[in-house]
């Protein structure tokens, strides 16, 4: 593979919370936060700022990230992090722009008993936004529908990509074996990047299982007519359906 340099493109400006944001913490009597960020933004300033106000700041590491506090879009499962700081904090604070990463923090709360919204602080626009479960309602409805249809499907297509970090062929083979023991037929499809318009070339497939980016099975499904679930959910779809009750 060709040598690769990653340039994180760090934000050089200020990240501090403004008075309006601090007021939100005071009014909601938040005493502890689980703090996350995208790689562009440092959490140091905000951590100090909150600690001065007596708010406990909990920081963990996601299993796939290189830096503390950093979150990736694929950290969308309850076991994506080394420590359970979301459960152990009053609130979740995300530093960054865009919705892709904070939505992962909502999705990661399946299986949780006490759902928490995500407070987003965007240091570029200096704006505070609250992301609650309404933001993923359409995705969750579609995900439940897909899990139910998958349970009844008899011909399954399992998608595997060649991208580093994905390449889940051995898991796909395990799933194929499991499904075929249950009397279903499974086919494994390989590609570099999935272009879902090609689904229509395989009309004999009843349901698709995605082993590439997990956000395909949580977000992109809203725009797909075909049934698709993530491979992590395909081994025990009933348990997965139960875990979505929190939403």
């Amino acid at each position, binding site marked *: 593979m*060709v040598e690769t340099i990653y*340039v994180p493109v760090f*934000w050089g400006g200020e990240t501090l919370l403004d008075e309006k944001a601090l007021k939100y913490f005071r009014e909601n009597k938040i005493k502890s936060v689980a703090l996350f960020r995208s*790689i562009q933004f440092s959490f140091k300033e905000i951590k100090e700022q909150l600690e001065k106000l007596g708010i406990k700041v909990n920081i963990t590491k996601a299993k796939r990230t*290189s830096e503390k506090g950093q979150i990736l879009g694929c950290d969308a499962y309850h076991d994506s992090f080394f420590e359970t700081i979301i459960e152990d904090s009053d609130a979740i604070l995300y530093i960054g722009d865009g919705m892709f990463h904070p939505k992962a923090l909502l999705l990661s709360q399946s299986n949780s008993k006490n759902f928490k919204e995500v407070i987003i602080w965007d240091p570029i626009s200096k704006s505070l936004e609250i992301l609650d479960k309404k933001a993923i309602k359409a995705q969750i409805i579609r995900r439940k529908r897909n899990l139910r249809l998958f349970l009844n499907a008899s011909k399954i297509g399992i998608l595997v990509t060649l991208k*580093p970090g994905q390449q889940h062929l051995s898991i796909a083979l395990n799933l194929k074996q499991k499904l075929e023991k249950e009397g279903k037929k499974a086919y494994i499809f390989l590609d570099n*990047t999935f272009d879902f318009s090609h689904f229509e070339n395989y009309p004999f497939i009843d349901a698709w299982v995605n082993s590439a980016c997990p956000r395909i099975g949580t977000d992109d499904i809203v725009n797909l007519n075909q049934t698709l679930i993530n491979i992590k959910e395909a081994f025990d779809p009933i348990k997965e359906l139960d875990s979505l009750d929190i939403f």
Partner: protein
Amino acid sequence: MYNLELDFLVKEIKKKKSKRILIQLPDGLKNRSEKIVQILEEETGAEVLIWFTSCFGACDIPLGIELLKIDLLVQFGHSIFLKEKEW
């Protein structure tokens, strides 16, 4: 106020003696490719190509580019990731 670390890249490219480089940027940074190509080409003499489409994350790197004799890939906007153990 985003730091593209072009000084660092120029030094690395010279050190590695890279001749043909592919840069890859997330959508929000794609319009910076004009400036990046100009600076890297002027400062290093390397050929700099731009990946046209996706750059979803650190795992989303173009495959097979060695066939075009590309000797360095520079992906902006992401950091190195750790592969999750197979479960």
